[in-house]
């Protein structure tokens, strides 16, 4: 008798717990969507006057599109430079930690890299503008002298080193821990059987990594890169401090270019009226870019998952 009662009770409790938990998780899911929708709505409402204003009233005097276009390109350039530097380094560091380094070294190295993520971006900016920029000046001078025929290296190089390339390097350091930490987590999850099978077939360590670890981890690497891209696109303070902003320029060694996030941060404190609306419209564009990037990333990841051989 008593046993049946207990079972009934626990079953009933389980049922209640189940519905409470599913309710909570549903609530959390709805909440995040609601917040996202509210942000989008706010941006759109506040940005609306910009789209309705006559073209000559918008900064630059040629309409919002002409104003935002160089900023979008600048944002993308900075993010691409950052990813081009951080992706290979981040993946290699993660591989070193997961497959090459002895445990005694791997732990501290992983820890130190995670620490990079905890440094506030204003510190990166201050370091970039005071230390990194000036120490890159000789390199930029050399690049402009020897590779000046390539448009992106055309001179004269900046005397302060505060260029979009420097900003990209600083961003690369900032996003490194994201790529490394996520890739490492994925690499260590590679099924041991796959790895041992590869080794048993006579593969060297590099061949084993290429045949088992990398294919298994590909979706993970991509999503880590996309997360890092999100940070690089939205990073504000470091770029605002490091970059000598200006009109769109092809050369990465001269001052010029500007990112959306930095443009907003630098002009927001004194903005009002239409200018404020313009900056919020710029924020809306950045929001849309990030959304599109994430959707593309999702699509790529689902595509690769089917062929990863993980299952």
């Amino acid at each position, binding site marked *: 008798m008593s046993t049946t009662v207990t079972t009934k009770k626990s079953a009933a409790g389980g049922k209640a717990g189940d519905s409470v938990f599913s309710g909570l998780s549903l609530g959390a899911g709805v909440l995040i969507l609601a917040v996202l929708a509210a942000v989008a709505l706010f941006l759109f409402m506040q940005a609306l006057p910009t789209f309705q204003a006559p073209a000559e009233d918008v900064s630059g005097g040629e309409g919002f599109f002409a104003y935002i276009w160089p900023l979008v390109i600048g944002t993308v350039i900075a993010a691409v430079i950052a990813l081009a530097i951080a992706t290979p380094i981040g993946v290699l560091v993660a591989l070193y930690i997961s497959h090459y380094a002895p445990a005694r070294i791997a732990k501290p190295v992983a820890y130190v890299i995670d620490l990079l993520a905890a440094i506030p971006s204003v510190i990166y900016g201050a370091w970039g*503008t005071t230390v990194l920029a000036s120490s890159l000046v000789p390199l930029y001078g050399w690049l402009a002298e020897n590779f000046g025929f390539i448009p992106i290296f055309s001179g004269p190089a900046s005397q302060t080193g505060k260029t979009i390339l420097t900003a990209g390097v600083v961003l690369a350091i900032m996003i490194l821990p994201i790529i490394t930490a996520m890739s490492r987590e994925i690499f260590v999850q590679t099924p041991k059987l796959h790895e041992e099978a590869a080794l048993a077939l006579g593969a060297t360590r590099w061949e084993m990594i290429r045949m088992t670890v990398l294919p298994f981890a590909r979706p993970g690497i991509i999503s880590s890169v996309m997360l890092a891209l999100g940070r690089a696109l939205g990073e504000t303070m470091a770029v605002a401090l490091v970059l000598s902003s200006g009109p769109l320029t092809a050369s990465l060694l001269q001052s010029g270019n500007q990112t959306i996030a930095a443009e907003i941060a630098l002009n927001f404190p004194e903005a009002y009226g239409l200018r404020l609306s313009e900056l919020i419209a710029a924020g809306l564009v950045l929001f849309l870019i990030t959304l599109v990037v994430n959707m593309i990333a999702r699509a790529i990841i689902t595509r690769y998952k089917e062929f990863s051989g993980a299952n």
Partner: protein
Amino acid sequence: MKASHLGRSAAVLAIGTLALTACGSDNATGNGSGSETGAAAGSVSGTLTGIGSSAQNAAMTAWQNGFQEANSGATVQYSPDGSGAGREAFVAGGADFAGSDAYLDDEEYEASKEVCGPEGAFHVPAYISPIAVAFNLPGVETVNMDGETIAQVFTGEIKTWNNPAIADQNPEADLPDTPITVVHRNDESGTTENFQEYLAAAAPEVWTEEVSGNWPSQWAAENNKGTAGVVQSTNATEGAITYADASAVGDLGTVAVGVGEEYVPYSSEAAAKAVEASTPVEGRAEYDMAMDLERDTTESGAYPIVLVSYEIFCPQYDSQETADLAKAFGSYMVSEEGQQTAADAAGSAPMSETLRTRAQEALDRITVAG
């Protein structure tokens, strides 16, 4: 006259570092009949709200602290949302005072009559900061340049330090052939706007762009965020030149600016002289201190590149408490102590005696409406 005298002594009491516990007896000995201003002399209380210029923020924080220390019952809130936002909120009645790098334009002034009574709002230039043109050339401490030369340097027309245009004005200096690297602000700022106003007035043929708080993209050069940023970049780059609040330039060399026949290096006195020599804005109350600086002044010893930031008050407030508070806080800001506090905290140039007296006379007009 008598009222203004009363007001001033009352304000001095309010701002003084006198022990506040003794204020009751001070009132009695001061003047018993001063019921209108008496409250200001004692411990003013309540909350005063201001919105405005972010350039004033450092000074304003120091003023808030100093004022609240002396008046424990009073709170001053200041939100550095920008000059334009401050003026907008003030004329709409959303703030008790505004801090602004520009005075109310005619339209805003008319609108201010709605909230401030028939006389409209008035301005007090409580924050004055000379803008130095600073450069990094080892061994060179000062260079003479007239307005046109400065404009040509900042628009990139003059590219090296030994350019004849500069050398001719500095026969004694040994100028190298170092390239000039112009460094400007990349954030919108009153410093940039005032510097451009000077260039547009002193060299209208060279500086053809419209004056604004942003550096024109046509002449974009190296830039950095904030005063500290441009000074840092200039310090790090040989041959760099920038403009910045004079208090922040440190060891950099500075330009003596051509005024009339002479070259004037920046100083607090020279800046105050330029402010005194300015013309009052027409159509305002006679005690109003809104002014148009004469950037192309030829007044001997005046330094024309100055940032003047105003506090904008109403001559009439709806409640006695707000009127007392506004008067006491305004008087504290323009007092010798208040000006020194701002100079220590934000590096502004203290107002001259003449200006302080005029400002105090204007502030004494503040009364309750009705």
